[in-house]
């Protein structure tokens, strides 16, 4: 029915359009570019049989914190394409990449308190737990749940004996605090994840 695959450059405009159709938290194209040029492994799209992008996940590594962890920036599935488990598939793909490539210890996300459908997906299907509540996180004043899911911390590959997260460096060489992260989009909305799907099923 729907193809789940890594996003390419050519998908970005469609991802942005999908985001603008579904979610109140939006981003300029540069922020999408920033994601795909930093963590190309984390962007996945759901493409329907007509070649239309009907869902996506946009994710990143959080480089400002000491613990090496991933963060879901945004997840959306068109209302017309719910009940196919697309959100779950997209999330699983992104999480697997975080774990495999960057050895992320956990993955975090924000969700509107009122978004029960999304909350249920995160807690019941995907195994997220509430870590914290961020008051007035969203532009309209709504609170967000700060949610986390523990990933299996795998032993380091090739040299099995040492762990690789020295000094909180998250596999990032010089990638931190670059021009790009400073100039991207609107700082107020830049890292807000939210999603909308599976409203009351019949």
């Amino acid at each position: 029915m729907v193809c789940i695959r890594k996003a390419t450059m050519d998908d970005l405009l469609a991802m942005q359009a999908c985001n603008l159709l579904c979610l109140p938290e939006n981003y300029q194209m540069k922020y999408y570019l920033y994601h795909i040029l930093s963590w190309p492994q984390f962007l996945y799209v759901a493409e329907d049989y007509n070649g239309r992008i009907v869902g996506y996940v946009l994710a990143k590594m959080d480089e400002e914190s000491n613990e090496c962890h991933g963060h879901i920036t945004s997840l959306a599935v068109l209302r017309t394409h719910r009940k196919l488990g697309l959100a779950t598939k997209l999330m699983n793909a992104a999480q697997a990449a975080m774990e495999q490539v960057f050895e992320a210890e956990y993955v975090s996300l924000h969700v509107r308190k009122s978004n029960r459908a999304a909350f249920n997906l995160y807690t019941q299907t995907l195994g997220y737990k509430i870590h914290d509540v961020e008051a007035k996180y969203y532009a309209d004043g709504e609170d967000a749940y700060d949610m986390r899911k523990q990933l299996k911390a795998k032993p380091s590959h090739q040299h099995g004996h040492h762990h690789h997260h020295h000094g909180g460096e998250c596999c990032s060489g010089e990638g931190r605090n670059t021009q790009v992260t400073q100039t991207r989009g609107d700082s107020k909305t830049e890292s807000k994840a939210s999603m909308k799907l599976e409203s009351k099923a019949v």
Partner: protein
Amino acid sequence: MGASLPPKEANLFKLIVKSYETKQYKKGLKAADQILKKFPDHGETLSMKGLTLNCMDRKPEAYELVRLGLKNDLKSHVCWHVYGLLYRSDREYREAIKCYRNALRIDPDNIEILRDLSLLQAQMRDLTGFVETRQQLLTLKPNHRMNWIGFAVAHHLNSNVAKAVEILEAYEGTLEDDYPPDNERCEHGEMLLYKISLLEEYGFLERALEELHKKEPKIVDKLTYKEQEVSLLVKLGRLEEGSNLYKALLIMNPDNYRYYEGLQKCFVLYSENGKYSSDETDQLDALYKSLAKEYTWSSAVKRIPLDFLQGDKFREAAVNYIKPLLTKGVPSLFSDLSPLYDHPGKADVIEQLVLELEHSIRNNGRYPDRTEKEPPSTFLWILFFLAQHYDRRGQYDVALSKIDEAIQHTPTVIDLYSVKSRILKHAGDFSAAASLADEARCMDLADRYINSECVKRMLQADQVALAEKTATLFTKDGDQHNNLHDMQCMWYELASGESHFRQGDLGRALKKFLAVEKHYADITEDQFDFHSYCLRKMTLRAYVEMLKFQDRLHSHVYFHKAAAGAIRCYLKLYDSPLNSLTEEEDNTSKTPSQKKKMKKQRKADRAKKEAEEKSEESSASGNSKFGKRHIKPVDPDPYGEKLLKTEDPLSEATKYLKLLQKHSADSLETHLLSFEVNMRKQKILLAFQAVKQLLRLDAENPDSHRCLIKFFHKVDSMPVPVTDAEKLVWSVLEAERPFISQLQDKTLSEANKVFLVKHEDSLMHRVAVAEMLHVLDPTKKPEAVKLIEDSSNKVVPKNGALGPVMGWKLKDCIAVHKLLDKVLTDQDAALRWKVRCAEYFPYTTYFEGSHSSALQNSSNNLDGETTVNGDASHPGISGSESLATANGKLEAFKNLTI
């Protein structure tokens, strides 16, 4: 820097530079003024002061000071560098490059300037320059990883793949065996994957595979590793290994259709056009049956066979596929199957089998041959499916009866209203479609998707103000009322622009179209920061892909629509300049009461506009009271009135036309617009180029025919050439004309007739011929009208794919009506046409069809607000579009889909 200054001032100068880098501009400014008090002519200080002011939005002063500084110290690389930075900040990259080059002439080994120059060269795709600069940087600082990588990427971009590989291997040679340290493993792995992709690109497949295997432990991204490996294996013809690897990939992700495609290729069972011999079909069938056992949870293994199976096997597979999805209530089932409607016969099979399911459930509550009952929702989803099916077939009455039954069955399912709205849109009742979409929206106000859908319908119904009000329910961002533009919401801007255009508000239409154009310019600009970022982050494959993506960015459909829309606005502006346009009234098709209503509406609009302006002023001042830093500059021209005052609309149009010609050269529309623009500019040879392009792309297209005839008709009526230039044009056309097969040994009238004979059964071809008949000889108007009216709306089998549908399309019939009304100006014929089309399209408001909301507002359960708006849509649709009609290019403004 600051060398000629005494120590105290030299320190102050350093402070300016530091303040600039840390964005403490006030501090920098103070320091600069301190120096200038003593040394008012100090060039570098003047320059730096200018650069600082540039960051404080004092641009004119900035340029003045930077230029003065340079004049005072032409030998300073700082002054040149600053001048370059200033140009760079204004996106004047070519000028900036010149400045950097001057700076380097004075200080050839200045790494900072070289680096800045290399970024500009990458941005401007000055690839030979980029290679040179990166080489210099590597020579100066060979111990920097980034300089090796940058040099390699430069060669790659400059199409010297072999050299790029060589550089990367030389770089690897500088590394210790135990490289990389743990915190650089990802980057190093990316570099290796980049190198291997280069080897693949260059055709060194064996070597690429060998290298991949050798470096496996150092490649962190295992999924990409496997994808790269399988790609190489297949290219090397090692298909068995390839198929095994694809199967392994499918275990990781059984929903990736590209893996199935790859697997088919490994079994030599793949065809681009999806056509297979019966033998191949059997093999494919067997393949997917075995895959279905392995990947039981994958829907792909069940869906893909529907593409290649035929006859009874197709029917069986389709039933098995559809039934559980109806039971589950998957709303996207129809859209999932819709590509099959292009396969001959499959739509009929689907219709038949879903009708059987409907019948069985309706009577027994269960599927045929089953004992267990289906839940009540199954019946609902069957009706939902059938409604979309009949909609697709153009049988709107059946579609509506199905969806109405579904709504009656379960009135709380929002999707039903969305689909009903879409059917009404297709049937031509935009205002009823909008009010239904609004009903759906109100059922879940927290869902932006149904809000967006509703906004789209409102714009199609030309309810622009209401649409904006509705959209902004989701676009408040802090104190900002509407961030649609900031967030680059292009579908909205395009749909809004098109609605304004239909309603004759060229200013606002232009405003929206140019806004979209600006987004694309901004996206092009966005890449700038990544030239250095990606070299550090080492995401080189993604970076190169991004550059290629940027190079074709302007061929994206949104840009195309925006540019075409803007060009159309400028053409219209040229044809009917500002003053006459606003007062232009188009009364022909309106009753006095409608006119009165319009007048009232306009008055209300004006009042509203004034009120809006006032409230904008007050909110702007409100902002400054709170001292917000983020006050956006107030748009000095919110309604595009200044845009309309352009001196030369055609040269504005040409700007966008050039972009279309460069990026959408294979689009018919590009050359139609080029024809229109260049005919008006009297650029005969350019118009001729457009005609030739049209003939190349589709000589049988009615619009191509129009342009061909119009062009030579114009040429034939030109006076005998006098000047040398005119004679030259003449001789080119003389030489070219015999090569146009349509015109060989024929007069234009004869060519017109030949075209008619060839396409006698097509409405739009007949209409084009009729229009040209009139152009060539205005006295033949009655003949032209008769030619149109003699067309017959036959049932076309359409390859049997869609089943019987009437041949004429609604938008074509509307275009024909406008032609009769405005171009051939035969009101009686237009009326006859309208009556006739009202029969064919009973839901269409434009023709006031018997089922349309135009005639039965009350019975169609519209609330008061939308009724008013519904009416407003009418003048919009029938508004003056003589230009578009004359050129038969309504095509471009057909429904906007995302």
